[in-house]
């Protein structure tokens, strides 16, 4: 109880309560995350259960339109799948890939950033040059290339099995330089401070110094970067899946749903593509706004 009370009184919590944007986007983000994570429990239907699909239900419009019914509040797709349930399962996939890719680039960036900043010299020069070159190219292009190479190098059935991990790797590898740069900058500053020197004098190894003395200094900026990166990673995954090179049809994400729904735009079934799009925007926008707020709240100069 005491810790909760203390957390409630902290600066961060105060600035959170004072910002309507932050509160609103936190609520939206929470709805998206709960809806996605608990999809198997909360979703009204299971879109993967072929036995429950009925082609008679196909192309039902949303409930607010004349022919809609409350059984499918935002309609059904071409195979009679409930769009709301498909969105919840799709968001689960999008969130899983987004979070995994962000964690992957975070770990890779922190590791390489610490190495570059602490070791300096040639290693630093080489790593940062690679990061420079990579930052010149838009990350969706890098993710596309990695995915394309994996597609060409792996046999087709193996690629389909591990497609999710290929996409996570492709997006993760395209986003590490920004994490590495942040960590490197801080590592270079802290390396020469007296407390690090003192720690070295009493015989603490470099790995432990980096993890317990240097790393805590960058946790704030890393948290901000990771939050903003989550939104970007979700968009990257959706873009890859929309282009047809991301996740396979058997594991649809929001991007896959939008691509499939696109085929029905012209026959008037707009809800199959628009609602997954709205879900994607709600998720990304709320995460981005939270990240923006966090950046301002953790910046002492703006207080």
């Amino acid at each position, binding site marked *: 109880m005491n810790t909760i009370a203390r957390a409630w009184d902290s600066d961060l919590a105060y600035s959170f309560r004072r910002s309507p944007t932050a509160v609103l986007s936190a609520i939206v983000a929470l709805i998206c995350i709960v809806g996605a994570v608990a999809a198997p429990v909360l979703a009204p239907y299971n879109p993967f259960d072929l036995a429950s699909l009925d082609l008679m239900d196909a192309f039902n419009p949303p409930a607010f339109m004349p022919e809609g019914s409350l059984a499918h509040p935002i309609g059904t797709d071409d195979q009679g799948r409930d769009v709301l349930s498909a969105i919840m399962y799709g968001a689960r996939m999008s969130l899983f890939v987004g979070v995994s890719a962000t964690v992957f680039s975070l770990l890779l960036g922190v590791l390489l950033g610490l190495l570059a900043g602490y070791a300096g010299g040639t290693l630093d020069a080489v790593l940062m040059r690679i990061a420079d*070159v990579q930052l*010149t*190219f*838009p990350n*969706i*292009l890098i993710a*596309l*290339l990695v*995915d*394309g*190479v994996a*597609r*060409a*190098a792996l046999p087709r059935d193996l690629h389909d099995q591990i497609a999710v991990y290929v996409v996570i790797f492709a997006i993760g590898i395209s986003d590490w330089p920004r994490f590495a740069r942040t960590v490197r900058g801080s590592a270079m500053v802290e390396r020469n401070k007296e407390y690090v020197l003192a720690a070295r004098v009493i015989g603490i190894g470099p790995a432990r110094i980096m993890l317990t003395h240097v790393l805590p200094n960058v946790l704030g900026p890393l948290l901000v970067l990771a939050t903003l990166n989550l*939104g970007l990673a979700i*968009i990257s995954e*959706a*873009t890859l899946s*929309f*282009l*047809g*090179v991301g996740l396979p049809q058997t594991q649809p994400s929001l*991007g896959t749903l*939008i691509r499939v729904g*696109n085929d029905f*735009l*012209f026959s*008037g079934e*707009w809800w199959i*593509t*628009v609602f997954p*799009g709205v879900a*994607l*925007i709600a998720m*990304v*926008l709320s995460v*981005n706004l939270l990240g923006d707020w966090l950046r301002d709240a953790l910046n002492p100069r703006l207080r």
Partner: protein
Amino acid sequence: MPAFVLSRILQALPVMLAVALIAFTLFTFVGDPIATMLGQEFSVAQRDALVAALGLDQPVPIQFLRFIGNALHGEFGLSYRLSRPVSALFAERAPATLELAFCASVVALAVGLPAGVYTGLRPRSPLSRALLTFSLVGVSLPTFLIGSLLILVFSVWLGWLPSFGRGDTVQLGWWSTGFLTLSGLKALILPSITLGLFQLTLILRLVRSEMLEVMRSDYVKFARARGLRDRSINFGHALRNTLVPVITIVGLQLGSIIAFSIVTETVFQWPGMGLLFIQSVSSADIPVMAAYLLLISAVFVTINLVVDLLYYAVDPRLRAGRGH
């Protein structure tokens, strides 16, 4: 100046070489060109003849040099998927992508610049707030979703504009242009907006923050104290000084416009290089992927080089001798 230019070019070279190495590795070690070109049935003698003809029996460094030599001549072999020379495929699709990129940049500049100036000069007006909210949504919206929504509203519901293809094109030598026919121009509208929207919001926010900064500066206050009219202060003093960073960003973003045209071209089935690339990725067509990789890197490296040199021309502090 020559030393600076030279050092910049020397820095760009290793990048291009590294990209060429990646493309070469893809080309040589991923997939099997021999099997792809010979098909199902062949004799050992046929196979050996093809290996010798392609130079695959030579040491890898020699192969790499040949690859670079061929690339400099625009030779990337045959596309596995279409069985046509890769260079011819790119030549026939380049005009579509370049015209789209050009129109997207025009849209971004023509709307983003005035909107940025306005929001910078009147930060508190309701229109400025509306524009800023719009720009926030524009940054968060994925490109493909913008395209889908535009198609839904303007093609399906209103029926005003075409939703796919380039319309009728006119052939000028080897360049096919959509600028000269009504259907070509109509087909350009939706893809240009889709592709330009992100750059538009970027330019809007950049110009706004630069204007806010400049309007606080001493020389603008002094110009006002001298009794100059608002119009000449806003445009002669303020806007002119915000243009340098804006030009830089627009230049650097030209590369990402070409890269993001992959998505826009897929949404609108625009017959450009991006669509070609995405079709090659999904069918593992290595020669086209390698060529696209090299081409797009050359574009990026060139743009960065030009922007660096422009900086040098614009910023006297760099000329004073420090170099970079």
